[in-house]
């Protein structure tokens, strides 16, 4: 019996402001999970701290609400221990690109099969509207004590530089398209980023619905020949164009899948190579004892330290 998106709803009251972009992301995510018919306990949504990071309470899966900036490491721990779990990081731009930027970069080097959904509202919602790393220079959104003197970082480019193998940008109010991208990301085996432009009606009074909707367009609608796939060595020729598109922002903001590289081995495959048996008996499931009795003896397992006198 296939699952319905209602099967992924919890009965918690959703603590977001009216018209917050997070609602769209929530719905798209629930729908994508339903479409893929994933068992609730086999999916883990891991978030940091922020408005967006409340999402674990609203999706009926096995979720973890971690620390500010640390959802990526916690998510990786889950995935390393149990490679069968579908692991999704859903967190804020401050969380992932500010305090958590080091992990955002490091995960790319692993190409571990985790999907990162970036709730990109360009502000720190939960702490009352400070500038996030994606807020453009000189913007003074309403809760700032002074204009923003730091430039915005480009999440797509940063992910690309870090080694992510699936990179997309979506818009929170376009639920269908976002849902599609989430599905595509989950299907892709490797570290994935979806940068979701997410209006925050409460604090970001500049980058509003109107602001975005004047600018956004879809790569594949504009250019039906758009193909983000890197599947064979020659495809790397596409990269300069892909990077150019990633850098496009003013006056128009492209949406869609920018990059999908299937030539890079994901981490579990790498681990299996240096530790045969990993995938079958991963850390979360392998026996550690037989009725309390250890599985080995130092004199059996660590021969290099033996001295016969």
């Amino acid at each position, binding site marked *: 019996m296939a699952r319905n998106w209602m099967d992924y709803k919890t009965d918690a009251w959703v603590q977001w402001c009216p018209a917050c972009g997070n609602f769209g992301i929530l719905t798209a995510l629930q729908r994508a999970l339903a479409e893929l018919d994933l068992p609730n*306990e086999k999916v883990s949504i891991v978030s940091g701290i922020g408005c967006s990071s409340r999402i674990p*309470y609203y999706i009926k899966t096995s979720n973890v609400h971690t620390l500010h900036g*640390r959802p990526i490491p916690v998510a990786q721990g889950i995935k390393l221990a149990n490679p069968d779990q579908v692991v999704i990081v859903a967190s804020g731009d401050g969380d992932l690109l500010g305090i958590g930027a080091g992990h955002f970069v490091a995960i790319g080097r692993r190409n571990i099969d985790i999907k990162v959904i970036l709730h990109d509202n360009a502000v720190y919602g939960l702490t009352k509207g400070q500038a996030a790393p994606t807020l453009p220079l000189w913007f003074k959104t309403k809760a700032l004590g002074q204009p923003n003197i730091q430039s915005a970082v480009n999440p797509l480019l940063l992910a690309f530089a870090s080694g992510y193998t699936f990179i997309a940008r979506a818009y929170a109010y376009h639920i269908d398209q976002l849902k599609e991208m989430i599905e595509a990301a989950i299907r892709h085996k490797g570290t994935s980023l979806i940068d979701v432009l997410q209006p925050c009606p409460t604090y970001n009074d500049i980058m509003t619905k109107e602001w975005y909707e004047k600018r956004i367009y879809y790569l594949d609608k504009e250019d039906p020949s758009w193909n983000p796939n890197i599947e064979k060595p020659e495809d790397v020729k596409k990269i300069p164009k892909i990077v150019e598109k990633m850098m496009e922002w003013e006056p128009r903001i492209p949406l869609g899948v920018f990059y999908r590289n299937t030539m890079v081995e994901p981490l579990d495959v790498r*681990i299996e190579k240096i530790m045969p*048996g990993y995938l079958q008996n991963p*850390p979360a499931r*392998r026996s550690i004892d037989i009725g309390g009795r250890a599985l080995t003896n130092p004199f059996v397992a660590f021969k290099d330290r033996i001295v016969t006198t």
Partner: protein
Amino acid sequence: MSENVDLDVMIGGPQGGGIESSGQMALRVFMIKGYDVFGIREYHSDIIGAHSYYNVRVKAQKPRSVRLPVDALLALDAETIFTHYNDLAPESYLIYGTESLNTRIDGIAPMDHDTKERVKEDLKQKGVEPVASEVVKYLASTGVKTVGLPFKDLLKVTAERLKTTVVSVSKTVNTMSITALAAMLGIDLGAVEKSIQLYFAGRKGIVDSNVEAARTTYEYIKDNYGVSKPLPDGPHRNKVRMIATGNDIVAMAKIVGGVTLETYYPITPSQDEAFYMETHRVFDLDEEASRSLGQSKTGTLVLQAEDELAALNMAIGGALAGARVATTTSGPGLSLMNEAISFAVITETPVVISVWMRTGPSTGIATRQGQQDLLHAMFAGHGEALPKIVLASGDHLEAYYDTIKALNWAEKFQVPVIHLLDKYMAASMMSFDMEDVDPYKVPLERGKLVPNPDPKTYKRYELTDDGISPRAPLGTVQYIVSSLEHNEYGVVTEDPVIREKMSLKRLKKMETIEREIPESEKAVLYGDPDSRITIVSWGSTKGPILDAMGSLAKEGLRLRFLQIKTFLPFPTSTVKKIIESSDDVIAVENNAFGQMVMAVRMFTGLNINKRIAKLNSRSLMEQEIYNGVKKALSMKEGLVVVSDGA
């Protein structure tokens, strides 16, 4: 007869110049001769060139420390002579390369400016020119037996015999020194050869040249110094034994103890623990396990994280998924783990953090000894990150069993366990037997782990009498884990009543931990239980203390020694009882502020008014306790700072 053997051999030279392998070979030579050994390395926080030295202690039964003065100094360079000429016992051996004799102290670039000035001043006082040859002469005049090895000649002979070039055998000078020592001590060449074969196992070329170098040197000594009285065999001959560092043994214990995921970020002096686990990531099962699991090997995943924040948070993620996890670090890493420790507390996640302490504050001296992280470990993590367990091991074998216990406790009580270890243990090696590392002595326990929870009734944070809730791995049933205050289902709440209950749950859990960990695991009494003179200490000071107590007892001064093993939970009643029944109490710690003394006061209200502290970042030695205790006993109260070691 071998019972009377008590040797301490020091080998010094430039870092990267074979000090490590000299020590390793020397340890094996004595093991092969049937002795128990203990060896420790002092080295600079750099890669190549600065002065490093290895101390090897040899006894019939379990030496636990090294001491000064030494019975032999093997000086692989002139800096060693200048650094350690005051450390030689009368009648001891100085073995050195004749090529270093012309070196003047000012010509030694790597030598610390301040050390140099101090040595020059001391030599001046003694009327000795600061040239190696003069220092050697001076030592000879004090009764030291000086043995100069003409390395150039010996290398030439070795090369000739092997029909190769001098350059290709040039790395054997440390073997030559060891061999010379063996010859002088009356150890047969066979033991040296066997030790070479063991240490360089599998690398035939290296084995051959070192064996040849040993032979050449042995002959040279016989020819020039005659045959020495043979060293009697020790009690441990014809056995299958082991020798390992503290790093090794904790790695072994983690693998034996069922860790399936270890994350780490490299840091001295912890990194070799993770390295040892990496090299043994796939390991053999014992026969019974092979049979029962139908496989001969299994594996432990070891992952190098991008920093310590990631290392601990990854470990926590792994534990949430159901893996038995651990991580390893030192002080700076512990600082960075504070936030995640608090996360582990509120989410009730089992994780073991091995903390290999070193010299602080801050980066301090990365490769030197310190016991400065006690209070920091106890109160690591904001927002009252309690309950947690803080456990300190006193030596290698304790560290082995403690690691397994820590893993059990973490899962049983669902708390982070900070296991305090230190550079002293990390960088020291000791010999031991199969019975010493019994893998079955501490059965593996996983507490309230429920592999197949009932989705209808399961509550991850159920309020229970003992404060401990059933723990189902993520992925087996749908529920939420949160760093925010939460209700029994893990769902965030700000309700004041639930919040209060959860606070009291944590308090109750600490009480459960206090109750369920037996007092005997919290503190251990050594020595004469009826003595009214008590040493109180913790961690790796145990070895020097026990060794010094042996010497003092021989003089009729019988002490007792209370080793505090757990600081959370604290052995309040034992510590109280022991202190209150003592006339003299002396605390021993490698820190300036007396952290254990503060902890003792915090839990018992009792003060310890005599302290021995070692603050110079070097490993504590037997004679320092021996002397320090005498001094402390002569005072009414106060601090005795012991300062041996170069």
